[in-house]
């Protein structure tokens, strides 16, 4: 039976989701807290918020800083990781900065952004960049720096130019870690965008959470949180598919 389930991973996934939702439903009926709604109530609120356009309006606001921030770190972060992985001097200069940034409590820094960038769009973009950049840069750097030596020698032996070597060997070889960084960075970017909306100015999805908490509409508050998880998971999965399509055809399911 276990073997049959392993052959159909969607069965296990569905079972896992059903288990968590069941646990949630049970937790809501106990109840764990008056601020902890049942799963079914949350899902009804979720449906209602889709139907009345609440989510559409909120995500239209959140998407701006998120997309700009993630695009900036996606391009800039991978490039920075690439340069650091290829040049020891840049590695020496840049690596400590990003290691410190990754270890720093970014959520605590987010409110300080307002001193420099105020409370507008730029501040939210900066929050997204602050949270997503270290993981993207460091993963890209590791992916590039760990290119198998034999592949580099092979490309030299077969007369690859510097650019062909980077494009045809170094980037595809590092794509696993680069895309792992992008996926984590995207998830961190969502966190940054929502944190900015919670801590800087209440707009978008962050505002939904703040607002429904203030009016004690907990099913809608949890539905807002659930929506972030769903949107982030779908975005990360799409990014994973893009990676398989672009760089790792051998890992595509047959």
């Amino acid at each position: 039976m276990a073997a049959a389930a392993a052959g159909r991973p969607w069965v296990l996934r569905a079972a896992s989701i059903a288990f968590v939702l069941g646990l949630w439903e049970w937790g809501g009926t106990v109840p764990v807290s008056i601020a902890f709604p049942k799963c079914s109530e949350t899902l009804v609120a979720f449906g209602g918020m889709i139907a009345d356009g609440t989510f559409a309006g909120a995500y239209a606001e959140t998407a701006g800083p998120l997309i700009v921030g993630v695009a900036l770190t996606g391009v800039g972060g991978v490039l920075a990781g690439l340069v650091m992985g290829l040049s020891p001097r840049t590695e020496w200069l840049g690596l400590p900065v990003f290691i410190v940034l990754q270890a720093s409590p970014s959520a605590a820094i987010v409110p300080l952004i307002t001193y420099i960038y105020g409370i507008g769009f730029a501040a939210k973009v900066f929050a997204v960049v602050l949270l997503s950049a270290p993981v993207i840069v460091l993963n890209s750097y590791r992916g590039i720096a760990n290119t198998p030596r034999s592949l580099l020698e092979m490309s030299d032996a077969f007369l690859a130019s510097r650019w062909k070597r980077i494009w045809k060997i170094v980037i595809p070889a590092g794509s696993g870690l680069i895309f792992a960084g992008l996926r984590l960075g995207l998830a961190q970017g969502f966190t940054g965008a929502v944190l900015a909306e919670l801590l800087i100015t209440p707009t978008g999805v962050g505002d939904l959470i703040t607002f429904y908490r203030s009016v004690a509409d907990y099913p809608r508050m949890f539905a807002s949180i659930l929506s972030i998880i769903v949107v982030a998971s779908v975005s990360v999965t799409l990014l994973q598919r893009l990676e398989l399509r672009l760089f790792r055809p051998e890992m595509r399911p047959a």
Partner: protein
Amino acid sequence: MTNRTSPTSEPTMSDGVRDPGGPAVRVVDLAKVFAGGVRALDGVTFDIPRGELTSIIGPSGCGKTTTLKIIAGLVDATSGLVEVDGTPVTEPGPDRAFVFQDFALMPWATVLRNAAFGLELRGVPRKEREETAREYVVKVGLAGFEDAYPHQLSGGMRQRVGLARALAVDAEILLMDEPFASVDEQIRRKFQEDLLRLLSEENKTVIFVTHSIEEAVYVSDQIVIMTRAPSQVSKVVRPGVDRSGGSDHIRRSPAYLDWVERIWAELQGYLET
């Protein structure tokens, strides 16, 4: 490749060979000191005759692969000279192709793309390079596997892709770094025979690093025996084993067995105790 099919002659030992047309590769007084002061090569000198298969054999860590990589232009020598067709080697060139011990295949590329990769790097149009690669994929015995990925192949099959890639660029000199080290004995013997058959059609100069005395005697026209590091050339020998009677006949022939023993006796003196 005349020696591969010549009748058995009385085994002789000589100090190198001079081809009337000049050697394909000359290695002169080569030295290599690695960072940290480890001296791998210390005055290595030998010639590689054109159109023949020369094996380099020696104790583990004696610098066989380093010598091969210096000839390929992948590693710089500390001093000394390598000439290919009279031109000093300073970097990899189109006249040399390398077969790697660990295959060095791109896991994200199909057999066909891996085999065509040398041509792809040289800017050969896709259709043309795939046609050439397909021809060599068939020649190395991988027909039907063109669209497979390396992880779907056995070790022996992967090395055949490495060989197809090296043959596809049509370099005069094939540098093979322990190409059969990662495959089991049965596959190794089959591969050795296939290699000899292929090389008899391709007319290449081959430099073949191996740690197997039997393999060196079986496939080589000439064998360069190296001493323990810091290495020098101990002897250059030409077994001249008669290959006309098939694999089993060769491996049981007194000349073959005699050469295996002679080289073993030569190498024994350099083994660490």
